[in-house]
């Protein structure tokens, strides 16, 4: 089902191009707005602190909020389930004898699918937010959290409204707006009930905050006799100060505005003219939130401020869209929400995530979305079993010692058309994808025979090599050892396993945990002695620093290893700054550089880039802002949910390298290298190899 939907989505090229452009505009506008903040981390920390504090005091805040709201004459209803919330709205409509409901945008009402029971009971429900109205007429679900109709072109929108009105509405944005204003004005004026969501609830005064850009929120809240607010319980904060910080966060992170055009603070129901007999209802929705709060694995999801930034940076979302990569809640954060609110069976799209980790990096509340997604994958794998292809890819690394031992034969066999066809049929490894070529001389073998000749005052550093360095391109760790040797720093290579990150990516968390424990046990004695550990592969560094502590319940040993782990580039740069490594040969020309996703969580290749500049190269960072698409072993899988997705994602990035000239293409990640080389047909060189050229041994 997921695969078919994806296959269809990948074929809609116009739609993909429109989505891609829109997402890019979203990211760019956000980045521009963020430039005004001197301190992005301070901004994130503030939002995260407010949400964390509010979620942990939720019971108390809920009580205070209700008391204050009731004091102002607001009727407060706690709905445990979607049905209870829907029935409550129905009962109001019955009591007042109304027939028309005007809604401003509310994702929470989408969550409970409010329109369905209301329409079934014969009431008319009209969405008044433009994007929501478009998808309501098209009978679709939201494609994006903030921009529900982001996938519709102007032409499609004009067609939808022309069909509604039976008079042609031209494919011109101004004209469309004029039509929408006129058509919906009458709805606002005749509605019996206005339904809105709420972005924030303020406990100290029983106030809700409703933010809109179109101005529809103000109209549904003021004209109809009854205003109903549907709000998830996680939206409540304590004070106006906290609310204002979130208001700023919403706008900056969602649309790159300094503030949303209209921010309404609604406290009790104000009269209209002489009519003071008007009602305000707050429906506060649980619908699984309490359970999420108590389930430590998913508590963090409740810190989501619904800005949609995570979907603007999600590569699989960019080529599949919110109808495939989503149920009602789309995108990365939609995965834990869907699994908890709508059920695990609706959260299958979790398998479209390939764990690049960028959603965490962009999230204004710093939510560890990738960690929660891997939990959802694990739950699904436990319920339904693991796909064979994922099992094969997870095992790929365990076959490596053997493959390396017989490297020439293995590589020859793996090149045979018949073998690849067979592998595709049996194991699901795409036959068109280049597989990494094994080297006969593994790094650890070279290391055993490496030349000695360090002086007696040598210092030592522990090396974590990982898969690519050990089996595929030992020249990279060799270059590193030689760079260090030039500064009289010796390398210790303790026994170690490769990082095991594929197990995290494919949701086999128990196996991931085993490997984490093994590597931490092997490295801890060094960390304990205060020995630095350096790692080359960004994913491995990310594992050591972030994934292992998570997998091992933040054990003392895992945290000790994490705190002593450094990127090789950072270590080298320190030695350069101390003038222990001297770059005597200068290189010339331009390096087009790709920053791997896991680097974003580390230093965004800051040290490497500075080092490359230091040896005389001009560095041109060439990015789409998203993952390159190979994402570990994901791109090796045959079919849409693998090579298909990977190729579609990579396309815009490959163009950047093919269109412009450069002397070198470089990236720190072995997987990005494979993807870029196959996509561009050009050679990709590891930065350590470039640095090696600059020293004289």
């Amino acid at each position, binding site marked *: 089902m997921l695969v078919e939907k994806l296959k269809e989505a990948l074929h809609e090229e116009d739609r993909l191009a429109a989505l891609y452009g829109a997402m890019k505009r979203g990211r760019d506008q956000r980045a521009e707005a963020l430039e005004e903040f001197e301190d992005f981390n301070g901004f994130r920390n503030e939002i995260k602190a407010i949400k964390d504090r509010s979620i942990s005091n939720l019971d108390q805040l809920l009580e205070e909020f209700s008391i204050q709201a009731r004091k102002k004459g607001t009727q407060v209803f706690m709905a445990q389930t979607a049905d209870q919330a829907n029935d409550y709205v129905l009962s109001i409509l019955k009591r007042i004898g109304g027939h028309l409901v005007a809604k401003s945008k509310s994702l929470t009402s989408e969550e409970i699918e409010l329109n369905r029971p209301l329409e079934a009971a014969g009431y008319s429900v009209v969405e008044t937010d433009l994007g929501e109205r478009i998808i309501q007429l098209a009978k679709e679900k939201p494609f994006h959290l903030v921009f529900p109709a982001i996938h*519709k072109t102007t032409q499609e929108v004009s067609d939808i409204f022309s069909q509604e009105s039976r008079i042609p509405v031209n494919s011109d944005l101004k004209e469309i707006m004029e039509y929408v204003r006129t058509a919906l004005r009458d709805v606002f004026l005749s509605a019996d009930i206005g339904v809105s969501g709420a972005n924030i609830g303020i406990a100290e005064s029983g106030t809700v905050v409703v933010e809109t850009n179109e101005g529809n929120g103000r*109209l549904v809240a003021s004209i109809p006799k009854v205003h109903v607010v549907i709000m998830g319980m996680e939206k409540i904060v304590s004070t106006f100060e906290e609310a204002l910080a979130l208001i700023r966060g919403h706008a900056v992170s969602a649309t790159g505005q300094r503030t949303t055009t209209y921010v309404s603070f609604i406290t009790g129901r104000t009269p*209209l*003219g002489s009519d003071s007999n008007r009602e305000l209802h707050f429906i506060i929705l649980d619908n699984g939130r309490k359970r999420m709060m108590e389930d430590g694995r998913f508590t963090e999801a409740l810190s989501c401020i619904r800005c949609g930034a995570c979907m603007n940076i999600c590569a699989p979302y960019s080529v599949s869209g919110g109808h495939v990569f989503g149920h009602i809640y789309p995108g990365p954060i939609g995965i834990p929400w869907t699994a908890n609110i709508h059920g695990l069976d609706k959260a299958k799209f979790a398998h479209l995530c390939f764990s690049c980790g960028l959603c965490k990096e962009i999230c204004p509340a710093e939510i560890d979305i990738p960690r929660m997604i891997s939990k959802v994958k694990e739950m699904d794998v436990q319920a339904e079993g693991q796909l064979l292809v994922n099992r094969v890819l997870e095992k790929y690394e365990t076959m490596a010692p053997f493959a390396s031992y017989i490297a020439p034969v293995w590589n020859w066999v793996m090149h045979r058309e018949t073998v690849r066809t067979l592998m595709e049929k049996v194991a699901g490894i795409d036959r068109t994808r280049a597989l990494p070529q094994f080297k006969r001389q593994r790094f650890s073998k070279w290391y055993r025979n490496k030349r000695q000749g360090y002086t007696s005052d040598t210092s030592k550093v522990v090396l974590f090599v990982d898969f690519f360095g050990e089996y595929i391109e030992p020249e990279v760790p060799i270059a590193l050892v030689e760079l260090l040797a030039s500064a009289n720093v010796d390398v210790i290579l303790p026994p170690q396993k490769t990082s095991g990150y594929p197990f995290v990516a494919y949701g086999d968390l128990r196996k991931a945990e085993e490997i984490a424990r093994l590597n931490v046990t092997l490295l801890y004695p060094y960390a304990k002695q205060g020995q630095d550990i350096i790692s080359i592969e960004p994913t491995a560094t990310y594992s050591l620093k972030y994934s292992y502590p998570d997998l091992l319940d933040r054990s003392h040993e895992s945290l000790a290893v994490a705190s002593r782990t450094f990127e090789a580039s950072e270590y080298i740069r320190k030695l350069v700054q101390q003038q222990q490594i001297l770059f005597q040969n200068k290189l010339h020309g331009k390096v087009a550089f790709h920053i791997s996703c896991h680097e974003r969580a580390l230093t965004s290749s800051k040290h490497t880039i500075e080092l490359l500049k230091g040896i005389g190269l001009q560095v041109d960072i060439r990015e789409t802002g998203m993952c390159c698409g190979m994402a570990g072993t994901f791109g090796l899988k045959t079919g849409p949910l693998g090579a298909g997705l990977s190729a579609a994602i990579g396309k815009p990035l490959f163009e950047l390298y093919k269109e412009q000239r450069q002397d070198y293409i470089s990236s720190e990640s072995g997987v990005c290298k494979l993807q870029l080389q196959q996509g561009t047909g050009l050679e990709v060189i590891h930065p350590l190899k470039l640095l090696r050229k600059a020293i004289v041994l």
Partner: protein
Amino acid sequence: MLAPILTSENVQTVTLAKMSMEIRDKVRKSLIHANMQIVEPKGINISRTLSEVDAGITLSNFAIAETGTVAEICHQDVDRLTSALPRIHICLLQCDQILGALTESASLLRSAVKTYGKSAISLISGPSRTADVELKLVLGVHGPHQVHVVTYGEE
């Protein structure tokens, strides 16, 4: 100052939200002088009446420099709708009521809610807008297409 804006936009009917008698009188005078019709919404069709008016004039309680925001504290939805329904919104703002940053408004918001109990406070930052189609910005959807802020008094 008001008349030229209204005349250039071809405004014929105007409505005024709650404001002090002194300011109201001044505004009325200049409107009458410019041949504008002043509409006083009353009765059960208040919203419809307001919806047909060309321009609404309101008084802002305070403003925020960082975000270009005017704040309106309302206890009566006629006032709220005056800045929500007409195509043109003119907001009067006393010069010494401008705060620096959005976050500085917390205590004003708190005291407004405490003092008046039931209230609707709107922070308004420009005309209504949407980017819902292809993320392309268009001004003027359900709310005003134009917002003019007219400052008065001494800085």
